[in-house]
């Protein structure tokens, strides 16, 4: 009998091993998957853009010799005391509760040494971060956990959070295992229960109300503090325009790669847009209103390198914010802890069950035995180093494009590697003058 060759086993693209594993997990547990972090999809991103660099028509600046400034003013529209940062890379809002006290301290230390700001989160302001942050942005969130006028007044800026990139339209949940005595006290809730964060504010809805809410906050703080409005990457053109109309000094725009402490995986991966698609729409809204550079734009969601910073700024952002990258700089998902990640059923680089409070790096936990492992001084130094490297990288690129300030980077300095990224970013496909979706070109 002849042994004919068999058709080799073929896995389904639609029903891949990952998909089937999730179906089995859902069938066994009856609950959706909750995790931290941002989208893990392969999305069009800054990697799909390239800088053109200088040529005969443009001359470069000398690296290490000719100045390329990096500072940024935020809140120049209405605030009596706008913020001046040395570098345009800020630390995004992350809550005490999601993060340990020492981790918040490290963020403050590193950011302050690098000349930038940190941001509170959905758990109120802690002494660790106020004490160690030269410039601290205080988030005004739907939950209002810990909200009080004294902290509003000792903040350097106030960020009214409408949404975040990981879950535009969604609230949050800090699961009971992370609700220590201190977290419970700050949030006025019993220890050990799941603490829900509402998806919309309790005392305003819509842009007309937001304008009055901003008025109230300005009155309470004597019109001194810059008021940011943070939006998730859903409808960036209209949301940016409405935030400006409501009186924002700064718009913070977070794409779907932006992280969260804990949300349903189905939400993270299926709601919102990548930051690359969001920035040009927000910039266009500002330009259409004649407010570009007058209302500053901070963008976040997947910023990792100085190249990402430079690309975001070339597309029109005034500054960027980092969250996940800052945690990695502190030591999150470090392969040195691989044995412990294995015990948790995961591996370094993939650990995202931050809501369970078992972080072996001691960063996303309220367990004293775990967070004692984390050295806030060393963590702060690592973050400072990382921020400095990002800034140097961005300057290197800006000089190569002939810019003496990061703010002088422009879309004309960019080209795109893919049709998708060209369309989203509004820059030509490499080697062509074609911007998909725009008239003319080829």
């Amino acid at each position, binding site marked *: 009998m002849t042994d004919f060759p068999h058709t080799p086993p073929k896995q389904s693209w639609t029903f891949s091993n990952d998909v089937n594993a999730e179906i089995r997990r859902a069938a066994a547990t009856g609950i959706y998957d909750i995790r931290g972090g941002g989208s893990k999809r392969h999305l069009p991103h800054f990697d799909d853009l390239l800088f053109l660099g200088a040529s005969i028509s443009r001359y470069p600046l000398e690296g290490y010799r000719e100045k390329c400034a990096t500072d940024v003013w935020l809140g120049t529209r209405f605030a009596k005391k706008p913020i001046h940062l040395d570098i345009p890379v800020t630390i995004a809002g992350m809550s005490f509760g999601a993060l340990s006290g020492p981790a918040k301290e490290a963020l403050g230390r590193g950011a302050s040494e690098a000349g930038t700001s940190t941001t509170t989160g959905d758990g109120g302001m802690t002494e660790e971060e106020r004490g160690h942050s030269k410039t601290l942005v205080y988030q005004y969130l739907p939950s209002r956990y810990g909200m009080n006028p004294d902290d509003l007044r000792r903040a350097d800026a106030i960020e009214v959070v409408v949404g975040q990139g990981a879950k535009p339209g969604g609230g949050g949940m800090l699961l*009971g295992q992370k609700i220590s005595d201190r977290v419970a006290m700050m949030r006025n809730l019993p220890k050990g229960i799941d603490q829900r964060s509402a998806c919309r504010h309790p005392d305003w809805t819509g842009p007309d109300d937001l304008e009055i809410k901003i008025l109230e906050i300005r009155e309470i703080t004597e019109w001194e503090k810059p008021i940011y409005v943070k939006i998730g990457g859903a409808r960036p053109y209209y949301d940016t325009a409405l935030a400006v109309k409501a009186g924002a000094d700064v718009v913070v725009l977070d794409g779907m790669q932006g992280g969260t402490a804990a949300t349903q995986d189905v939400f993270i991966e299926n709601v919102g847009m990548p930051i690359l698609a969001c920035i040009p729409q927000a910039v266009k809204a500002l330009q259409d209103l004649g407010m570009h550079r007058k209302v500053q734009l901070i963008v976040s969601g997947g910023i990792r390198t100085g190249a990402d910073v430079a690309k975001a700024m070339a597309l029109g952002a005034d500054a960027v914010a980092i969250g996940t990258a800052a945690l990695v700089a502190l030591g999150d998902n470090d392969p040195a802890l691989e044995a412990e990640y294995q015990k948790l059923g995961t591996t370094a680089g993939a650990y995202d069950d931050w809501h369970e409070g078992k972080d072996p790096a001691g960063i996303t936990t309220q367990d004293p035995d775990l967070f004692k492992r984390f050295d806030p001084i060393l963590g702060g130094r690592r973050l400072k180093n990382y921020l400095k490297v990002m800034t140097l990288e961005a300057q290197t690129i800006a000089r190569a494009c002939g810019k003496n300030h990061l703010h002088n980077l422009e879309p004309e300095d960019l080209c795109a590697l893919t049709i998708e990224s060209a369309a989203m970013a509004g820059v030509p496909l490499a080697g062509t003058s074609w911007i998909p979706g725009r008239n003319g070109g080829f």
Partner: protein
Amino acid sequence: MQTFDLAAQGLRALNQTLHGLNGTTNQTAWEVVNPKGSHAIAVGLDAPIDVTVKGSTGYYCAGMNKQATVRVKGSVGPGVAENMMSGTVIVDGDASQYAGATGRGGLLVIKGNAASRCGISMKGIDIVVHGNIGHMSCFMAQSGNLVVLGDAGDALGDSLYEARLFVRGSVKSLGADCIEKEMRPEHLELLADLLKRGEADHLAKPEEFKRYGSARKLYNFNVDNASAY
């Protein structure tokens, strides 16, 4: 008595003046005339002063109040005494939605009716409403006390945490995880004090109220309760 004409002198000047007062001031009595429905009147106060607003106000009157007593001789717009920390706010007329939202302390008295979402996400404030309250009141209320001499609308106390709700009249419906609870002696004692401080002890007796609170079944996520979420 210091008189401030809001129409002539403006909102910024009012709040700036009131913020400049502290516990040592002898200018403890203020009267604001011509409020004309303005927003953010007397917000962020932090001194033991007495402010009387002669007329109706817009949004967020007495927002984030500390220490001060603010009386409104009229009705108030949305979010009166939102996030109040301490002190007292007394409204002679009606209150629009979100009255006392997220309040963390102090006493809010509404002598008329309060609209929807009264006491939403309250975190320690005491609220006494002489009239009725609208739907979704005390949604996600965390702590503090709500006293309603009249009726409550739909979905009272939905997703309630540890706040205590006392209603004398009817409740159109209870929200998820909110149940009627036994009125024990300590609650009657608490209620008597709240009625007195809320200038309502001549209008109602503690024994006439029912108490509502959290069943605490939704405190930790359980897929078997999915239909309640």
